[in-house]
């Protein structure tokens, strides 16, 4: 049944990917469950991180047909044909810096798969790099004081809302490819297309946005990023079922997962994800609505079926958030292991030696040492926790991180860890080094009237 043909019918929205590194085989069972259920349904694939987008923009500048999510075709290949045949549209932000290029590539795949009638919609207008929309912007409150130098900008993308996605679906798209949009919009778009909710029906938009927020990280709703053995156990972590939300015309929300998959959906998994990346729970700002979850009630209706009620909405903000990516210098890293008697002391000596070498070489940058196995990720850059920790385990790994403006200093710092093989303490082994080109991101607020989101429909003659 197609979206909108019976707006009173329950709408199912599945999520087959929660981030750009997610399991490539996750969408299959979700697509199967949506198709088997038979009613109106849509499948979202969230694959776009901030860094991903900046790297994609760099790629597109070098090759005009590149700059979209590299795994997009791998994700779509197993499900595209059966979703299109069943009338289950797919919505993805895998267009990254080049939604049109992504659409052409997918249409090439459609030709290969024998799907000549596939309709692919592209949402554009989020990319404001090099446009007037970037001038005189106020920073987002978390980046207060940030100043934007347009010449340095690698990528600048505004979080668009659900309206262009809904428009593409109303035009009959089998697949909607966007660049940057709010993650919940990937779910709210099909709800708008199906139920025809008004753009000022704040409580329904809030309920739909809450459902989208729960879905957007995929398995984080169904037992991923959750298990804590003996405290919070999750069955079948190797086959986690990705989430499905069942939405009613009145904004009722129930979350579940496909039968026969691993994972769990219960009050605890849902509560953790409801609050994930929220700041003020009374004011979660999205392009479509301001969501208030403080009155939300969670009910376990049946195993792996959880109902949420009580989301409230307020009018959407006047500005949209833009992520601006800038060159962030270079990071050099190196690690080396010490084990057995006196391991910690040897690793500490290696660390002191590295510090001395960095000074001796006059490398300009900021450094940090970790003793993996003693104290690492909890510590600050100053090493206060490590110094206060007396434990001396028999297997530790020293890590140096060195950030510099230029590439050469970062490479040299990483090389100094490699040199410890011969010049360091006894029994040092397993060196790995890495040098990374970094991207810094800042958020700014863009007035809505500076943006003009566009929807275009592409078909097989546009194939790459």
């Amino acid at each position, binding site marked *: 049944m197609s979206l909108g043909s019976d707006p009173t019918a329950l709408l199912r929205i599945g999520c087959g990917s929660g981030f750009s590194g997610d399991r490539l085989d996750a969408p299959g069972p979700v697509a199967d469950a949506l198709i088997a259920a038979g009613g109106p349904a849509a499948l979202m694939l969230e694959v776009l991180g901030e860094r991903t987008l900046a790297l994609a923009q760099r790629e597109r500048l070098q090759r005009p047909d590149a700059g979209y999510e590299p795994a997009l075709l791998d994700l779509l290949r197993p499900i595209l044909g059966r979703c299109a045949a069943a009338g289950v549209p797919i919505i993805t932000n895998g267009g990254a810096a080049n939604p049109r290029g992504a659409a052409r590539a997918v249409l090439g795949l459609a030709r290969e798969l024998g799907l000549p009638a596939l309709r692919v919609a592209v949402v554009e207008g989020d990319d404001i790099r090099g446009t007037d929309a970037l001038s005189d912007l106020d920073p987002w409150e978390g980046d207060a004081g940030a100043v934007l130098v347009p010449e340095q900008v690698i990528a600048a993308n505004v979080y668009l809302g659900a309206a262009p996605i809904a428009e593409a679906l109303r035009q009959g798209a089998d697949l909607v490819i966007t660049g940057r949009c709010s993650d919940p919009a990937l779910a709210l778009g099909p709800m708008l297309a199906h139920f025809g909710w008004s753009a000022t029906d704040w409580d329904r938009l809030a309920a739909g946005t809450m459902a989208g927020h729960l879905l957007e990280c995929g398995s984080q709703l169904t037992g991923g990023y959750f298990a804590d053995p003996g405290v919070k156990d999750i069955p079948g972590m190797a086959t986690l079922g990705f989430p499905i939300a069942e939405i009613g015309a009145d904004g009722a929300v129930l979350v579940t997962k496909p039968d026969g998959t691993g994972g769990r959906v219960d009050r*605890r998994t849902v*509560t953790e994800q409801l609050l994930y990346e*929220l700041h*003020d729970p009374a004011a979660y700002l999205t392009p479509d609505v301001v969501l208030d979850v403080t009155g939300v009630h969670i009910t376990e209706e049946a195993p792996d079926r959880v109902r949420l009620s009580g989301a409230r909405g307020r009018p959407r903000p006047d500005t949209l958030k833009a992520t601006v990516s800038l060159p962030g210098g270079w990071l050099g890293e190196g690690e080396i292991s010490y084990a057995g008697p006196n391991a910690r002391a040897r690793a500490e000596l290696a660390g002191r030696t590295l510090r001395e070498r960095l000074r001796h070489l006059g490398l300009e940058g900021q450094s940090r040492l970790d003793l993996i196995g003693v104290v690492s*990720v909890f510590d600050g*850059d100053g090493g206060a926790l490590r110094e206060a920790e007396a434990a001396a385990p028999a297997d530790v790994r020293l*890590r140096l*991180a060195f950030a510099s403006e230029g590439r050469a200093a970062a490479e040299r710092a990483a090389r100094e860890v490699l040199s410890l093989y011969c010049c360091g303490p006894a029994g040092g082994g397993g060196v790995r080094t890495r040098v990374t080109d970094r991207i810094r991101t800042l958020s700014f607020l863009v007035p809505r009237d500076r943006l003009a989101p566009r929807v275009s429909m592409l078909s097989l003659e546009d194939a790459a």
Partner: protein
Amino acid sequence: MSTIALHRLAHARAGDKGNRLNLALVAHRAEDWPLLAAQVTEARVLALFAHRGATAVRRHDLPGLQAFNFVVEDVLQGGVNGALNLDGHGKTLSFLLLGLEVDQDAPPG
């Protein structure tokens, strides 16, 4: 006085936005929420993250969800794109919070 790790009474999840961290803390049992409200204060959480340069903590109370949301400012030392820390997202930090000691016998409130 009998102190136990918060890990016994609650579970938690960390999320990041730039240099800002949020920690959702959820009581395993609804009846423990008042004890957590009394003892897991903004000041204690700020002290817990002081070594990382945290500048402020705001606690949002969600009794209906038997939960709290802590928003910790400037704790990620540059965040995912700028930190020297292996875990630039701060994803592991929910378990730094869960290591906090609470007094099980103290009267709530």
